[in-house]
């Protein structure tokens, strides 16, 4: 039973976290909004006054905007498709009885713990280098001409690297979900002679749907803002400039803060659209 006294103590205990997060959210957000309505070039004259929605219009009408949207969608979509499909297959495989299950799990999960700059650089040099990379050796072994991955197949390369990083996350969550599946139901279906595919479509997939949704939403939020993987591989060249990277370049490289801030506001709106769906699911779970 919560008394009046314990309620006020509780409020006091929550205060630091709430105040800090409120500040963390409001202060930079207000500043971004403020800058987005200004012509602001710190290295070339500083604050040059209010410009209304000019930055918002210029950001979307610049020639690099739509390619950046396309690059973002291709990377996020590609990684989602690969990690979800492979994740389901891998989770089902890992759920089977086998020897050394614990060790295999560790092997599969390991890439998630590799810092983004390391995985990007290791893939870029030791695997995708057109002369000395392992993939080049493999291509030559089969008599093919090695590919300059990061310039000729830049998007494929980035998607490969990022998928490698996120496959463990998808697998682990889907595996956790599969393990909560009632095995008697599956056995009964097996007894009744339901073929493997039917069992998958009618029992496993519906059971996984919530976990799949969660994987998609959480990964989308993280994938929309991948940065290091592009920063150390292509630096945004060869069509790999995502929305996040474009904003980063506007703000820090060309120091056009007004324009970059308008882009930032777009990015915030985009992320919030995804976030609303995620919050609904998480919120429902809280009531349960």
């Amino acid at each position: 039973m919560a008394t009046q006294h314990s309620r006020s103590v509780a409020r006091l205990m929550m205060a630091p976290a709430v105040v800090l997060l409120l500040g963390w959210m409001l202060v930079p957000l207000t500043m971004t909004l403020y800058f987005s309505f200004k012509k602001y070039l710190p290295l070339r004259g500083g604050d040059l006054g209010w410009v209304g929605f000019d930055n918002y219009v210029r950001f979307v009408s610049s020639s690099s905007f739509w390619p950046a949207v396309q690059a973002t969608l291709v990377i996020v979509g590609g990684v989602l498709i690969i990690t979800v499909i492979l994740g389901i297959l891998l989770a089902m495989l890992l759920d089977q009885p086998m020897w050394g299950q614990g060790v295999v799990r560790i092997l599969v999960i390991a890439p998630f713990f590799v810092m983004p700059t390391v995985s990007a650089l290791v893939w870029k040099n030791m695997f995708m280098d057109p002369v000395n990379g392992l993939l080049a050796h493999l291509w030559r072994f089969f008599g093919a001409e090695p590919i300059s991955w990061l310039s000729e197949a830049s998007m494929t390369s980035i998607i490969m690297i990022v998928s490698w990083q996120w496959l463990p996350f998808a697998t682990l969550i889907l595996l956790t979900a599969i393990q909560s599946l009632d095995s008697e139901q599956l056995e009964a279906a097996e007894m009744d002679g339901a073929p493997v595919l039917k069992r998958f479509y009618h029992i496993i997939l519906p059971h996984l749907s919530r976990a799949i949704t969660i994987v998609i939403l959480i990964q989308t939020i993280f994938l929309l803002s991948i940065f290091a993987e592009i920063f150390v591989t292509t630096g945004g060249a060869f069509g790999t400039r995502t929305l996040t990277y474009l904003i980063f370049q506007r703000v820090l490289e060309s120091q056009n803060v007004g324009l970059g801030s308008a882009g930032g506001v777009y990015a915030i709106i985009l992320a919030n659209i995804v976030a609303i769906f995620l919050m609904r699911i998480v919120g429902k779970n809280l009531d349960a």
Partner: protein
Amino acid sequence: MARAVTTRRKSLNTILAWAVGLLIFFPILWTILTSFKTEAQAIASPPIFLNFNWTLENYAIVQERSDYMRFLWNSVIIAGGSTILGVIIAVPAAWAMAFVPSKRTKDILLWMLSTKMLPAVGVLYPIYLLFIRLGLLDTRGGLVVVLMLINLPIIVWMLYTYFREIPGEILEAARMDGATLKEEILYVLTPMAVPGIASTVLLNFILAWNEAFWTLNLTAVDAAPLTAFIASYSSPEGLFFAKLSAASTMAIAPILILGWFSQKQLVRGLTFGAVK
């Protein structure tokens, strides 16, 4: 008969799963192996897998040339500091929400989660500017604060889901026996909460260690952690595969080991309790 079929199926599963597992792990294994080769062996054609002259010289060169220990120390301070600070702030909040819930608890939790969704790039310049004005650019203190703030929602959420599993009856019983609030927290709750807090610390240490947006953009020399140290290898100079491998191995080894202990918490922490 049934037994024999099961064994056969189990063997097939085992072979397939190990093959896939090793394939996924291979880039890490290859990096570790290459770190012990000489530069010439690292790019030998065809590639050498195991029968090379194992050497530790790359580790010595990396340490000597770039002062690895300084970057490591920065990573430890930044990841450790932000985690500890975050937990100190989050424990009371999560405790209050789990044990004295009100109508607004759910809204507050969801709102906290929503701050985590704020794309970093959207607030890059304001934070950059504040860092310059406050003299925090390229300082460990500044990064500790920023990483604490971006991970605070996850810390609160994880602790909340753990605390909620502590049965309320135990608290009632303690209160019946005349325990004060202080005693209740110290002798009843703390022992039951320690495993959850430990898991939270572990996962958030890992997340902070690997964070690579703020650490790359807000550091230059003095406060640069391992993420930035590795990024400095992005412009190659001559033969450097073995050295890159040694540097990479040193950057990921501590976290790989910690990570293997935190598999279970990973799911709970990163799905905000939606999948357990």
